[in-house]
C-alpha cells in the first residue's frame, strides 16, 4: 500500500518537475546568442537562404508559439528533428542512452563495492591505524573532482602503464553482432566474453573516475552509521551470543546502518550521472554527455532540449528507485 502511494505521489510530482525543466531549458538556450541555422549554412549564404531555413525549422515564429509547437510534439513523443544531423531527436537520444546508463551503473557498482569495503574495514578495525588510514584515503578521494581523477587515471593506466583503453566505448575494428545499444549487457547475454572484456576495458577507467568520489562518500557515511549502530542494544545482545565481531557487523548492523545512508547515496548518484557529461568527453565515450556537448557547440536546440529532458527523467527515476528500495528494505514501511 505504502509503495503504491509513493508511486502515485511521485508520478504527479514528476510530471510537474518535467514541465518546469522543459520551460527553463527551452527559453534559456534561446537567450544564449548564436543562430544554429546560420552556423549550418556555408559561408556566403544569403539572408534569403537563412530566412528559408529558419521557416523550415519554425524559428521565425514567436518564442511562445515555438514552445507550444515543441511541447505538443513532446507530449505525443515527437521531440523534433536535430538541426545538425537531420534525424529525429528521440531516436538519437535513446540510441545514446544505453551507453550512459551502463557507464553510470558500472560506476555506481564500483562505488558501492569500494565504499562498502572501506566502511566495513574501518568499522571492523575502529580506533586503530587502519581506520585512520581509511579516513585519510576517503578525504583524498573526496577532495579531487571526478574529471581530475579521470586525467590521473588516463596518465597512470593509459599512458604510463597502458593496461586499459582510454578512448571510445569499444575497439572500432571489432565486428559487433548487437541488436541493442546495451553493449555491456548484451555481450554478456550472448556469452561473447571477448567483446565483453573489450567493452569493460574501455569503460573501466571512466567508470572508476566517476566512482572514486562517490565511493569516498559512501565509505564515510556508512562507516559513521555502522559505528553508531554497533552501540545499539540489539548488537550488544548479539555479541553475548558468541558471534565474532565480523559476523556481528555484517549480520546485525549492516542492514540497519545502510538504510539511512541509502537516500544520501541516491542523491549523490544523480550527481554522478551529471558527471558523465565531462567524463564522457574526456574519454571520447559515445554517450549522452558527449552528445550534449556537441549539441551545445552546434547550437542544435532541439537536440539540447531532448537531452536535458532525458536527464531530468533519469534523475527522477533514480530518486523514485531509491524511495522504493528504502520501502522494500525497511520492514516497518513494508508492512505499514
Amino acid at each position: 500500500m505504502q509503495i503504491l502511494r509513493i508511486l502515485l505521489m511521485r508520478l504527479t510530482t514528476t510530471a510537474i518537475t518535467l514541465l518546469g525543466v522543459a520551460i527553463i531549458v527551452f527559453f534559456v538556450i534561446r537567450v544564449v546568442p548564436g543562430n544554429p541555422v546560420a552556423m549550418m549554412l556555408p559561408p556566403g549564404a544569403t539572408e534569403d537562404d537563412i530566412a528559408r531555413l529558419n521557416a523550415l525549422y519554425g524559428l521565425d515564429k514567436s518564442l511562445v508559439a515555438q514552445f507550444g509547437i515543441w511541447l505538443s510534439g513532446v507530449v505525443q513523443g515527437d521531440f523534433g528533428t536535430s538541426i545538425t544531423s537531420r534525424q529525429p531527436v528521440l531516436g538519437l537520444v535513446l540510441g545514446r542512452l544505453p551507453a550512459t546508463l551502463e557507464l553510470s551503473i558500472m560506476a555506481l557498482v564500483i562505488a558501492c563495492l569500494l565504499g562498502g569495503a572501506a566502511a566495513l574495514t574501518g568499522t571492523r578495525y575502529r580506533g586503530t591505524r587502519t581506520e585512520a588510514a581509511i579516513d585519510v584515503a576517503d578525504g583524498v578521494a573526496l577532495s579531487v573532482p571526478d574529471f581530475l581523477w579521470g586525467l590521473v587515471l588516463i596518465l597512470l593506466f593509459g599512458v604510463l602503464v597502458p593496461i586499459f583503453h582510454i578512448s571510445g566505448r569499444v575497439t572500432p575494428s571489432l565486428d559487433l553482432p548487437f541488436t541493442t545499444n546495451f553493449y555491456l549487457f548484451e555481450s554478456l547475454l550472448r556469452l561473447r566474453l571477448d567483446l565483453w572484456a573489450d567493452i569493460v576495458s574501455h569503460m573501466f577507467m571512466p567508470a572508476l573516475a566517476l566512482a572514486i568520489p562517490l565511493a569516498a562518500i559512501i565509505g564515510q557515511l556508512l562507516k559513521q552509521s555502522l559505528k553508531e549502530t554497533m552501540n545499539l542494544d540489539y548488537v550488544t545482545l548479539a555479541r553475548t551470543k558468541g558471534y565474532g565481531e565480523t559476523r556481528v557487523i555484517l549480520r546485525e548492523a549492516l542492514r540497519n546502518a545502510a538504510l539511512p545512508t541509502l537516500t544520501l547515496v541516491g542523491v549523490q548518484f544523480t550527481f554522478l550521472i551529471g558527471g558523465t557529461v565531462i567524463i564522457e568527453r574526456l574519454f571520447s565515450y559515445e554517450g549522452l554527455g558527449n552528445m550534449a556537448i556537441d549539441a551545445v557547440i552546434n547550437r542544435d536546440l532541439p537536440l539540447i532540449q531532448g537531452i536535458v529532458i532525458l536527464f531530468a527523467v533519469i534523475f527522477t527515476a533514480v530518486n523514485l528507485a531509491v524511495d522504493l528500495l528504502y520501502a522494500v528494505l525497511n520492514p516497518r514501511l513494508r508492512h505499514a
Partner: protein
Amino acid sequence: MSFLSVRNLTLRLKNGPRLLRRVSLDVAPGEVRGLVGESGAGKSMIGKAILGILPGAVEIAEGEIWLDGTDLLSLPPTERRRRIGATAALIPQDPLTALNPSHRIGPQITDRLVHILGWSRTDATARALDLLAEVHIPDPERVMRNYPHELSGGMRQRILIASAFAAEPKLIVADEPTTALDVTVQKQILRLIAGMQARHQTALLFVTHDLGVVSKVCQRLTVLYSGMVVEDASVTDFFAAPRHAYSAALLAATPKYTDPAAGLLPVPETVTASVRAEVEAFDRAMDSAINERGLADG
C-alpha cells in the same frame, strides 16, 4: 563449587575514576543471586563484564571472572566470546531496543543454536517453538515470522526470555528485566523468569532496584554502593538482620512491596556520608598500594 565466581574485579574508566572496587561475588549452579544498589552503583557493569560487553571506555584493572571453571579474562577474545555465548545469556532491560528491527523473530532465537552450537535448522526451530509456548506466546508459528515492531513490549520481553533460555545456558544475567515494562506486565514477567529459572535450574544473576523482588526471587544477594560490595548475605539473613548500615537503611527505605511503583525512598544522609567515606578510604589505600608498587618497580 560456584558456577560463576567474580574475584576482586576492579573496573575503571580509561585514565579515570574506578567504577567497580574489588568486587567479588559467586553464583552457585541453579542459584539466584540478587544484585541491588542505587542507580550508578555499577550493577550493570558487573553484568557487562561477565558477558564481555563492557563499553570501550571501560578497562579491567584487576580481577578474575571464573565461569564454569575457566577464568574468562585469561582466554583470547574470540575464544572468550564463544565460551560466553555457549554457557551464559543476557535478559536485557529494554525489550524495545534489544531485538534487531530488520530480522524476523525466528532467526533471532535460532541463529545462536545453529551457528554457535551447531544444531540443525529444524531442531533449532522446534526448540524455539517449544520455548515460545513455554513463555506463553500465543500462536508461536506466526510470531516466529513477525518482525519486532509488530509485537508489544511484553511480548518482546517474553521472546527475549525464551531466547536467553534457548541454548540451555548455565548462567543468565537479567539486568532489570522489568523496569522498562508496564506495571501490569511486570509481575507476569517476573513470575515467568522465576518459573523458567526453577524449571531449567539455571544460575541467575538478577539485577534490580527492588528489595521486594529480591525477597521473592532470590536466595542470596549482593548490595553494591559506588562500585563496592557492602553486603553479601543469604536473603533470609539479610531480611532478618542486615549487617551493614547502608543496606539496613536501604531495607528500611523500601516500601513493603505493596507499591512497587513508589520505588526507593532516599537513604538518610548520615548513612550515605559514612559509606562514601569507606569508598574514599578504599580508593586511597588502592592508590597508595599502586604508587608503592610503582616506586618498587621503578
